[in-house]
């Protein structure tokens, strides 16, 4: 099956749902990379290039939203979530305006462009903003669901999207609800692997590797980092007693942090966080980088095995 990047799915979903005339798409001179040019081809009058000025773009998006527009503001995650962080906070989140941030090129799988362009802190930063919803879909279909949910949700949404083509996990008939995790695999109660973004596919593969070794785990796709599905996480923690989180993000403050916070108050248990160990990425081929930083099915399986052995 052809691999599709979530950024591709983002552009397509914008074009698909673009018949809603409230939708306006802003980009900061990266339309071909963020794939908002797919929307532009269909609705050129509602695609507005803001040039290389992300701070201005976010506040312009806010101004547009005050008039009833549903605004998608797009750039690379590092420039959206970080360069324009304070504009997102003060002009979008504080007045709870209907702006959706389409942040592509998240994580180290950006590849050759290197650390300057590999955003590994955005989940932590964005989920700490009041009024912000944070989503991190894993494949094209889930991205489509996420865009639809973002349009239906009244208020700011941060959408974490990737550059790298990824395998498809979901079909159109998958049930999807903002804020509700998806149990993808339920082999048993030895542990639960909780993953987000393109790590979900790796987690599913890790479950298969573990099964061959007689270790039976659940795999949960947390596509909505905020609000996080506390009930499902508590249920899994109660059933399995051990949680492994996997994300293409710093282990500080992202999915792992959010899971720990949720479980600390509901069902405390051992949590092993897999991600970037408080370090920046580097240049290289995406697959080699994922290997280098331990973000593969094999490494997830190893870590899960070790976590289970602690029991």
């Amino acid at each position, binding site marked *: 099956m052809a691999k599709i990047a979530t950024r591709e799915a983002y552009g397509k979903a914008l074009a698909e749902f673009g018949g809603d005339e409230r939708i*306006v798409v802003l980009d900061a001179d990266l339309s071909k990379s963020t794939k908002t040019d797919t929307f532009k081809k269909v609705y050129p*009058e*509602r695609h*507005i290039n*803001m*040039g290389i*000025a992300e*701070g*201005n773009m*976010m*506040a*312009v*998006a*806010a*101004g*547009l*939203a*005050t*008039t*009833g*527009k549903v605004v998608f503001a797009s750039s690379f995650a590092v420039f959206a979530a970080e360069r324009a962080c*304070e*504009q997102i906070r*003060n*002009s979008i989140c*504080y*007045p*709870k305006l209907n702006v959706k941030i389409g942040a592509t090129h998240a994580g180290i799988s950006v590849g050759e462009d290197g650390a300057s362009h590999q955003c590994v802190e955005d989940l932590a930063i964005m989920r700490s903003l009041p009024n912000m919803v944070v989503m991190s879909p894993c494949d094209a279909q889930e991205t489509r669901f996420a865009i639809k949910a973002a349009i239906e949700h009244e208020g700011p949404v941060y959408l974490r999207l990737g550059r790298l083509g990824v395998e498809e996990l979901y079909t159109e008939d998958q049930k999807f609800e903002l804020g509700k995790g998806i149990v993808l695999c339920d082999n048993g109660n030895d542990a639960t692997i909780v993953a987000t973004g393109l790590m979900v596919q790796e987690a599913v593969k890790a479950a298969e590797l573990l099964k061959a070794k007689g270790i039976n785990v659940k795999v949960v796709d947390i596509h909505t980092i905020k609000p996080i599905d506390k009930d499902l996480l508590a249920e899994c923690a109660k059933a399995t007693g051990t949680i492994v989180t996997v994300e293409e993000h710093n282990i500080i403050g992202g999915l792992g942090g959010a899971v720990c916070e949720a479980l600390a108050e509901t069902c405390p248990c051992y949590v092993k966080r897999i991600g970037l160990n408080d370090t920046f990425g580097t240049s290289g081929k995406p697959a080699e980088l994922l290997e280098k930083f331990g973000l593969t099915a094999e490494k997830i399986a190893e870590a899960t095995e070790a976590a289970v052995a602690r029991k």
Partner: protein
Amino acid sequence: MNEQKLLELKKKAGLIRRYSIEAIAAAKSGHPGGSLSIADILSVLFFDEMKVDPKNPKWADRDRFVLSKGHCAPAYYAALALKGFFPEEDLKTLRQTESYLEGHPSMKSVPGVDMSTGSLGQGISCAVGMALAGKLDKKDYRVYTILGDGELEEGQVWEASMCAAHYKLDNLTAFVDLNGLQIDGATKDVMNSAPVTDKFAAFGWNVIAVDGHDIEAIRKAVDDAKATEGKPTVIVANTIKGKGVSFMEGNYAWHGNAPDAEQTKTALEEIDAVIAGLEG
């Protein structure tokens, strides 16, 4: 402008100054200097220019106003209250815990506020967004914003200025409250943004310089802005920080300090004398 209208606008400006000082004194915090310097601009906008409806603050076709220099909320709130958006007596609750009158403008809590501001440089971008929406929707509302001259040091102001000219937003009019002072001192000493008019002209704006305390001059500049096609207009308003209160005028120490009881009494006496003079 007829004499009666001019008197009315001067009186409203006087009341904006009075209410600003009263509210800041009651809060024991706030920004009097810049609130006093924009009173005449607000008077023209709210009482002679903008189409707004206090009974329907979110009216889709209304003219928009963004106070990019959000710290001058006391003057903005005074104008809104005088216009009838909320009771004038509420102004004295400014900055208090249970009040809806946030220290900086909040569109979520204050009727009539079109955009939450306070972080400098962002309001002009929001105004650009509103003006773009007006163009997209082919509506004829206009968008007004007021910037501080210290605020011009924020790079985002120039990103927004480039964008407004690029998209030919002739429905956007920005004022620069050129009072020459910011918290740390004179703007020319802290970070010189002069020549302001040349900079905006270079960015492709229609530029008009006026005496920011001359109601008729402001009125005429707004008319010129409305008549200008294909580019946004900036009205560079030469003002005096603290205008109307002798001991505050031209003194940067009054950027963000509240007057004490004695100072408040003196300030209000001076402002009231001007208002009384207008009533003849």
